[in-house]
């Protein structure tokens, strides 16, 4: 039987890797990938708790389903935005996209 904390630690490490990618990479597609990794790490936690905490067994699984759905929606819109930005600005380098200021 694997202890709960191992799973949680693994998920935390995965989350950290994803966060690093989101913050450090130049390519917008990779940034989106990083977000997916973070979401998956969170989802893993949900399923782990569904297994280890009996009172959450059903709700955690349903919640993780919703999480997966939202991630899918997010990646669809995110990639569409990346493509639109690429067509408009001829780059998907996040540091070159500087219009987000007053």
């Amino acid at each position, binding site marked *: 039987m694997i202890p709960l904390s191992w799973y949680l630690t693994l998920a935390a490490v*995965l989350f950290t890797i994803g966060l690093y990618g989101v913050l450090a*990479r130049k390519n917008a597609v990779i940034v989106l990938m990083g977000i997916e990794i973070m979401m998956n790490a969170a989802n893993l936690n949900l399923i782990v708790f569904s297994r280890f905490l009996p009172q959450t067994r059903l709700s955690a699984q349903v919640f993780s389903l919703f999480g997966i759905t939202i991630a899918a929606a997010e990646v669809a819109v995110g990639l569409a935005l990346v493509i639109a930005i690429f067509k408009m600005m001829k780059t998907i380098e996040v540091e070159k996209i500087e219009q987000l200021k007053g």
Partner: protein
Amino acid sequence: MGLFFVVLSLMTLLGALGAMLLKNLVHCAIGLVLFFIGIAGFYLLLQAEFIAAVQILIYVGAVATLILFAVMLTENVIGETTLKGLGRNRWAALILSLVVGGVLIKAIGHQTFSAAQVAERVSTREIGRSLLTTYVLPFEVISILLVAAMIGAIVIAMERNKRMGE
């Protein structure tokens, strides 16, 4: 069990690291697929078979494919990729990620969940039933969200094209 855990951990960690650190974008995407499959493996290990199936279908089947398409639409795949590297925030990002990771792991050390017993397996029937009874409202809302996202994605990606075509 222990062996499976170690193998899956290595798979997900390597996949995630590869996706975040490799230079070639296609390699990154492959690392991501590896990661997704590893996570699905964990779901199986935790006896959440339905979620594992959903994970494979949605992430490996749809999200990874979408990402590969996006890579190909925005980059010159075979030849030189201009954007392989890290941004100027790389060191700040590294330090911050490490701090966040440290905080998370420290918090796990503090956790007080009594994980003495293990919950029963959740059957797919149960999930389906609860989706249409207890969680019917969120279920409908999320369906609307998905439709909206789908339409939105098409509109965002199409609009420029049309204008260019004119």
